């Protein structure tokens, strides 16, 4: 297991050092500094073995966090723990910086004592930790409070404390997707996938039992077969095939595995409920149609049409098209119907920006590129045209069907909860070859 944990500043000075195991000595602190932080070469691996001691490190801005061990530990767990450690620190005192760490070193030691015991990670959910590790010192607690704390820290629902109360029960769901595309000049999709996240902000009283439903193909098909038409009366609604998804630890995985239903008691505040990936039937918000013509050896004519491919009532934002130009470009003349376009010599590209664009529209840019004559035989490699945008829908087609909230002990029902759902689709790597 983890033998020790060190935090360094960018110079390699130790800010925090906590040793959990006898086999890790003080010299380990120096070994890491000398061999990794002060190493001349760029770091080639996040795991370094120095004299039979293994160092795992992650870097946050210019702060190094290093976990040390002499055993065959679970490497994935060590990194997950280091990330968690960063999350916890951020939740307590904000940005991880030298100043913040020095200012809170007593708190960090206290946290390290709690979330790592003999090198074994223990409950590290900030929600639970904040109930008994505070910067203000321990207030006198009643016996009930104490046992409530311990049962929460060790309990099945370690991520939420009991007794949370809100006057207004409210929840926000954000479906955030990034759509990736590689398209051939002829408009053939070479590869496309969406990686999405469902982020939830919950402000709910008590210990609410939630059930999340989306238009998952497997679920819809199953219901279709069963002939049940409960609240999803509108049949024929499109469903999507999800390649893979992972869930926050609050979700009951065995239930998902057997019934594919997503049920959970959410943490308080903001967290990531799930991540998913889809590759089938992706709605591509934009199509880029390039036309490049070489006129002689010193001139290129480029025409690019973009077509928005979604409901006319919706508006895409922050649209940016990047058209690469050859290295030997000497001048560019651009004409565009909409937005602004500029040739940026330092980036070897024409950058065309459009603030807003409604669905089912098209726009066009044409450019004349003057080239310097070169004797370089090599042809221009024609890098792909890339695009950035943001659209108010989920390109995967994912729809939130419901998020039901049950809190049997308190007197509010599903109908009393105010729910907000928002879809944001952003471009990932969205490229069209030309």
């Amino acid at each position, binding site marked *: *297991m983890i033998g020790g944990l060190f935090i360094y500043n960018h110079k390699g000075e*130790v*800010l*925090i050092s906590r*040793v959990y195991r006898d086999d890790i000595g003080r010299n380990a602190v120096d070994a890491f500094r000398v061999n990794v932080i002060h190493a001349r070469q760029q770091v*080639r*691996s*996040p*795991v370094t*073995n120095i004299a*039979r001691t*293994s160092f795992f490190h992650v870097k946050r801005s210019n702060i190094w966090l290093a976990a040390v061990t002499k*055993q*065959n530990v*679970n*490497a*994935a*767990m060590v*990194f997950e723990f280091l990330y968690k450690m960063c999350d916890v620190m951020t939740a307590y005192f904000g940005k991880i910086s030298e*100043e913040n760490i*020095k*200012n809170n*070193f*007593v708190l960090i*030691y*206290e946290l390290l*004592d709690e979330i790592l*015991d*003999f090198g*074994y990670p*223990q*409950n*590290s959910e900030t929600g639970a930790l904040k109930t008994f590790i505070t*910067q203000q*010192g*321990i207030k006198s607690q009643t*016996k009930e409070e*104490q*046992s409530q*704390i*311990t049962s929460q*820290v*060790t309990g*099945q629902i*370690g991520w939420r404390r009991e007794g949370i109360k809100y006057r207004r029960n409210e929840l926000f769901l954000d479906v955030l997707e990034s759509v990736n595309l590689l398209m051939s000049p002829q408009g053939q999709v070479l590869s496309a996938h969406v990686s999405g996240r469902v982020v939830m902000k919950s402000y709910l009283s008590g210990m609410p039992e939630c059930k999340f439903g989306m238009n998952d193909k497997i679920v819809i098909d199953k219901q279709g077969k069963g002939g049940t038409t409960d609240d999803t009366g509108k049949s024929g609604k499109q469903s999507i095939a999800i*390649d*893979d*998804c*992972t*869930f926050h*630890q609050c*979700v009951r*995985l*065995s239930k*998902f*595995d*057997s019934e594919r239903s997503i049920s959970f008691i959410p943490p308080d505040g903001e967290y*990531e409920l799930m*991540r998913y*990936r889809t590759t089938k039937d992706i709605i591509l918000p934009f199509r880029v149609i390039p036309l490049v013509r070489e006129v002689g050896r010193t001139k290129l004519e480029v025409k690019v049409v973009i077509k928005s491919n979604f409901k006319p009532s919706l508006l895409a934002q922050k649209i940016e098209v990047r058209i690469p130009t050859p290295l030997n470009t000497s001048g560019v003349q651009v004409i565009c119907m909409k937005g602004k376009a500029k040739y940026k010599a330092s980036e070897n590209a024409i950058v065309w920006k459009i603030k807003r664009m409604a669905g089912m529209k098209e726009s066009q840019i044409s450019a004349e590129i003057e080239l310097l004559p070169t004797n370089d035989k090599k042809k221009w490699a024609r890098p792909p045209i890339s695009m950035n945008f943001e659209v108010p829908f989920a390109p995967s087609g994912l729809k939130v069907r419901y998020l039901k909230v049950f809190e049997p002990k308190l007197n509010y029902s599903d109908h009393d909860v105010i729910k907000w759902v928002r879809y944001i689709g952003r471009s990932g790597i969205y490229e069209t070859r030309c």
Partner: protein
Amino acid sequence: MTDSKYFTTTKKGEIFELKAELNSDKKEKKKEAVKKVIASMTVGKDVSALFPDVVNCMQTDNLELKKLVYLYLMNYAKSQPDMAIMAVNTFVKDCEDPNPLIRALAVRTMGCIRVDKITEYLCEPLRKCLKDEDPYVRKTAAVCVAKLHDINAQLVEDQGFLDTLKDLISDSNPMVVANAVAALSEIAESHPNSNLLDLNPQTINKLLTALNECTEWGQIFILDCLANYTPRDDRESQSICERVTPRLSHANSAVVLSAVKVLMKFMEMLPKDLDYYGTLLKKLAPPLVTLLSAEPELQYVALRNINLIVQKRPEILKHEMKVFFVKYNDPIYVKLEKLDIMIRLASQANIAQVLAELKEYATEVDVDFVRKAVRAIGRCAIKVEQSAERCVSTLLDLIQTKVNYVVQEAIVVIKDIFRKYPNKYESVIATLCENLDSLDEPEARAAMIWIVGEYAERIDNADELLESFLEGFHDESTQVQLQLLTAIVKLFLKKPTETQELVQQVLSLATQDSDNPDLRDRGYIYWRLLSTDPVAAKEVVLAEKPLISEETDLIEPTLLDELICHIGTLASVYHKPPSAFVEGSRGVQHKRLPARAGSGESAESPEVGQSGTSEAPPAVIPSQGDLLGDLLNLDLAPATTTVPSVQPSMQMGAMDLLGGGLDSLPGVSHRTEMQSPQPSSDYSERELGGDIGGSPSMGAALGAPAAMPAALSNAPAVGGGLGDLFDLGGGVGMPTGFYVAPKTLFLPAMKAKGLEISGTFARRGGIIQMDLSLTNKAMSVMTDFAIQFNRNSFGLAPAGPLQVLTPLTPNQTIDVSLPLGTTGPVMKMEPLNNLQVAVKNNIDVFYFSCQYPLSLLFVEDGKMERQVFLATWKDIPNDNEAQFQIKDVHLNSDAASNKLQGSNIFTIAKRTVDAQDMLYQSIKLTNGIWVLAEMRVQTGNPNYTLSIKCRAPEVSQFVYQCYELVLKN
């Protein structure tokens, strides 16, 4: 709230100031002082002098202060053990505190204070805390047991904490269960043979239940523990897999990887034709792909593991090539790993895409990455024949870039392509020659020289080119020197007229002016070859080279299997077994994948003690009842161990049954030999138990894997019955024939480029035979086997060629019986019965040594006349007499005498004095040496006394070994 000020004090009289502050009456000042002390401690300053003052602050109601003092104590208690005692009272008191948080804090801290005197005081509070009503205290106490065990293992055992810890596995709180599992796993690791983590279906069930309820970390502890369990049969294996698969959707990558480990391991046990097996394979791919969207450090860990998984089960990710394409902003370590996996997944179906990518990568900035990309193009050419041409033209394009390291790397891989596809792409040589001057790395220079030498006849100015290298011959690295020597000799053989001077020059450089023995030797050999027999030289030097194999950097199969058992851990990141980087005993045990055959006994513990590698004939005898079980069990031990001997007479019955059921077994073709007990049957037994366990593909090779478990489960009963019969027979006095030990591993695959040889010796009807099993554990076909012995004590030599008629395909095993004569050259060996063997195949020549039982040399006409015996006995000086004890033989003298006769140890006379039988026996060796023996058997005493007289007393020891072996088997 600015604690940073504590870091800044660096004055000289600091310690004194701090001392004063620590003893201050004001609480706030005290706390400030302790903070300063901790800050100094963090930075590495020695503040141990303040020990008593800090400990004095311990008695406080302020929890924050208390925690700081504890932190200090953990750091310095070891250096001040006597003073640390002062703290004990507070700890003991705190363990009784009404606040569970304080109780837990006390027991947690106490465990970290590694002072012997304190540990004694720790026991009572710990015992209480282990049974505390509060789960928070219990989960802390569980870890504390592991801490205490690390300090004083004996104490933990004596105090019975281990049992309490085991009880906690049934605790109602999932986190307590998880910590108890973690603690027990750690303790069990340092006691490899203890049955501490007694994993049985009940505990497994408890763990699986807790798995659904505990924290992400707890799930990891439990999954890692589950991975050490070996299910009883495929059904149990499947049911565990079913309950573990939901974990694949967990957001924590470590949970996912640990689940993958359990599944990969237990999958070994599932029959491949099972529907569930296919479902499981399909379920594994998406989560592995998802791991690649994690943070880069985790991606790295995931990729290193995927690299193993792809080698073990390529089918899982074969359609996922695209996800391994390198992204522009990936860190370099992720890029390099992705590249590695891309090559492993490259196939005819996706090669076009892969090549396009690789070409892109070859223009990146990172030198290592670019080199690897170029190398990858070469490997694609070798792996996918259809793509070779495109690869070559891509490489040529890259050479045109004139980027120095790209050119050099490309030349190295083009050399390999020539080796794989001779006479196909030589047209590019001209382009390569243009770049001769830019090569400054030894590997590239050596590759280029090889190409020039190999194709000297097509390069007009080959002599000039090679001559240019010769100028700085002594400054070159050995690699280049050797290559240059060979290349010039090749050139000479191809164009003798013009290059005589050149060859003489290089030969004298290599032999006279060089200190390197390798170079000198090679030089002399060429010189002699060229001067004595140029035709032979041509045959040797210009011989057709074997084609190179496709996969050169695969991890060796047994290591791969071991690493699969370590998925997610450091071992899987380093691709090394834990023993390579962990000190001491911890985690050094080798883990093995479970066997596919689902026999009951094989399951319990795959890590049976069997780690000693004794070269002497094995003496372990399984009890008769669970013969089969034991065999299976033992075969699961590491491959280097000797296979224990089995009483052949008993095995026969069971074997015949098995043989009948599995006609495809190679061993069964020796059916005729069944009368005289063994080798064929012995062999098939091994097949079932061991090799199938080792590599699942074996199962498929044998044709009917599904049928095997059934056959196996039938066998023990029948075998036992027959065994009894034979046992009776033995008592009545049936001669049992020559005892043949089961095959032992002579040559591990690791040492012989994938060829594994195990074998034994037998004497059948006066003919000495060496029974060998050759297994091909490499990737390519092996042919052209031959065998040769070194001189040995009794002139043993092969009496015929090694009969391997068909090429040995990967994963195939072949059995051969090699007849031996005793007329070979004689040289006394140490030990006497040592035999050094050389085996050649198309790949290389391998050497191993083994020892044969001396009884191999006991001839059939070794029965001496009584009179002669008496005279000889007297004639041999008493100094030559050696006495031995043979212990624990439960045979009467008649049965023993019968058994010995089977091995040509003849009883000439028997005398009974005072209930003691004296047997007089004679033996004749193949070289005419007589050995006389007197064996005393007392009724009711299992220990025999053996006196051996021989004119060559050095054989006595080995004769005694034969007695042991024969009588005990």
